[in-house]
């Protein structure tokens, strides 16, 4: 594979067609030399090439600098398919459909938060169900769950969670149109019935942060970010409901592919033409799961806001932005001089249209970043950028190398409080298991596909 790689500049590597048979377009990997070295550690490069073989792919099979081994698509993978002749693939979205990030800003000084953090963090831990529990969230009737799937965060606002202003600050105003609850299986609905408003486990978290440094004052001010003041970041997705939707449609598409004469190099890349019954059904079900995820983050944010109100009654947490990083959207883009309709898959990648906020969580205990989408991203990556630090060490290896007690003490020494449902999760999520998020962000900044606005430093972390 290496012999097909050609460095274009300090931030981009071309993976030429021919790296594997059947590539319809080249691959394009955003990586500096530090990130390039990590490409040898897993199969993610092969996955970039595999995606390039899918029917109807346009331009490049992209990988963002947080690239690592995923299922089907690499994490950090972006691919756009012709809406007329292309496909849609559950493997290009992932199991955790619409996993994403919401950021809330405040004018509460860091010192005030630090004074309260010993009580504030347990209060958040109590208010937001987390960890590997079957439920703990809202108990929804069948009708209510269907309404969540069709209306997303809009349903939550109607029920008294959050505000209209939150919707204005959420991708697609918190509701993907043409979501179809009718094509979401009963099994998926059963998994989602008691999980709305829950964080989950693994790499999901709720974090209190402070705005540590501002790089772009005008944009930061527009986003409501104030240096030295607290923010709250929430990272989670569609929980068991989304996982089940993915699993269901992998089976559906495996059965359908033969009818459409499609062959894929990796079963996790099964797909169907976007305009086929199977493609349209998956799109509807995926949108429904995304609505569930957006409602989930919205309700968690509402819980966090209520807790903060008890501690800081005069202050308000305001939504900066809420954006998914596992999703497929039908979008209009200009490509090679033509206006085209594309199905853009982002798997561990963020929509970065000009002026939009891009939220990049770091690993536990390390900085996070707020970026801003650019016209260059719209012109070169179908409006896409990275989504996070990106793992570079397996969970088992991280667990072997990390003593959870020592990690808690080390974080405490850095002024970071931690609460977790499982000590094992702490070990698995040790900062050393991830790439340096600042390297990831710097690559996107230098490449111009999103620019740095502010750096956020953690004060307290809640893990599942």
């Amino acid at each position, binding site marked *: 594979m290496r012999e097909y790689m050609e460095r274009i500049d300090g931030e981009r590597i071309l993976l030429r067609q021919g790296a594997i048979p059947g590539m319809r377009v080249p691959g394009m990997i955003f990586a500096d030399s530090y990130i390039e070295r990590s490409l040898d*550690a*897993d*199969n*993610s490069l092969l996955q970039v090439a595999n995606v390039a073989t899918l029917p109807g792919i346009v331009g490049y099979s992209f990988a963002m600098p947080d690239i*690592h*081994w*995923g*299922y*089907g698509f690499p*994490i950090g993978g972006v691919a756009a398919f012709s809406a007329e002749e292309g496909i849609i693939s559950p493997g290009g979205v*992932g*199991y*955790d459909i619409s996993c994403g990030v919401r950021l809330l800003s405040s004018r509460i000084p860091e010192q005030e938060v630090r004074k309260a953090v010993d009580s504030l963090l347990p209060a958040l831990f109590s208010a937001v169900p987390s*960890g*590997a*529990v*079957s439920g703990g969230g809202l108990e929804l009737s069948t009708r209510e769950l269907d309404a969540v799937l069709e209306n997303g965060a809009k349903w939550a606002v109607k029920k008294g969670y959050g505000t209209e202003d939150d919707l204005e600050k959420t991708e697609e105003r918190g509701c993907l149109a043409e979501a179809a609850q009718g094509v979401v299986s009963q*099994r998926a609905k*059963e*998994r989602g019935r008691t999980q709305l408003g829950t964080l*989950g*486990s*693994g790499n999901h978290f709720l974090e209190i942060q402070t705005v540590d440094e501002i790089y772009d004052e005008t944009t930061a001010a527009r986003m409501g970010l104030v240096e030295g003041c607290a923010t709250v970041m929430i990272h989670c997705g569609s929980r*068991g409901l989304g*996982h*089940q939707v*993915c*699993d269901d449609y*992998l*089976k559906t598409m*495996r*059965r359908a592919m033969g009818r459409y004469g499609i062959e894929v190099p*990796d*079963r*996790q890349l*099964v797909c169907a033409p976007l305009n086929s019954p199977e493609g349209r059904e998956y799109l509807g079900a995926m949108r429904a799961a995304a609505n569930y995820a957006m409602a989930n983050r919205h309700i968690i944010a509402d819980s966090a806001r209520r807790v903060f109100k008890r501690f800081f009654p005069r202050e308000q947490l305001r939504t900066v932005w809420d954006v998914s990083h596992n999703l497929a959207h039908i979008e209009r883009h200009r490509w090679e001089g033509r206006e085209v309709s594309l199905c853009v898959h982002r798997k561990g990648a963020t929509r970065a249209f000009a002026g939009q906020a891009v939220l990049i969580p770091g690993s536990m205990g390390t900085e996070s970043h707020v970026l801003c989408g650019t016209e260059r991203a719209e012109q070169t990556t179908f409006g896409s950028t990275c989504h996070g630090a990106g*793992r*570079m*060490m*397996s*969970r*088992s*290896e991280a667990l072997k190398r990390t003593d959870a007690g020592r990690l808690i003490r080390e974080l405490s020494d850095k002024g970071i409080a931690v609460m977790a449902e*499982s000590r*094992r*999760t702490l070990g*698995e999520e040790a900062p050393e298991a991830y790439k340096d998020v600042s390297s990831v962000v710097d690559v996107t900044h230098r490449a111009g596909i999103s620019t740095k606005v502010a750096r956020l430093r953690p004060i307290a972390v809640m893990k*599942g």
Partner: protein
Amino acid sequence: MPWKIIAHTADAGLEVYAETWAELFKLAAEGFYHICLDGDLSSSPFEGFDNSHTISIEAIDLEELAVSWLNELLFLLETRRAIFIPSSLSVSDTRATLLAEGVLAPANQARISVKAATYGGIVINGSPSPFLRVFLDM
């Protein structure tokens, strides 16, 4: 140990070796529960109601059968907080079907960071004896 956990950058994999197909699926369940429950498999069946449970799966091939089996166990763990303890398990490798009868027992530890069993990198074959490699999305 007839199964072992193998490394994956983001997730976890499982390799299982067995003498028969039924044993392969039983051992896969054991390894899967080990990952989900952090090694704590000690459990007794639910008391006070009928805890018998049957799992029947018809798949398109053995890969789908293995993934469906593990995802069925995940479904029970997530929605009922239950471990399935099979008393009988039969697998047809030619028809890709599975029938398991057993009981449900409470899962003592609620550590379920597994999202799904996946097809990524899956290997299942019967020669010289049944073998399964499967990765779990965490």
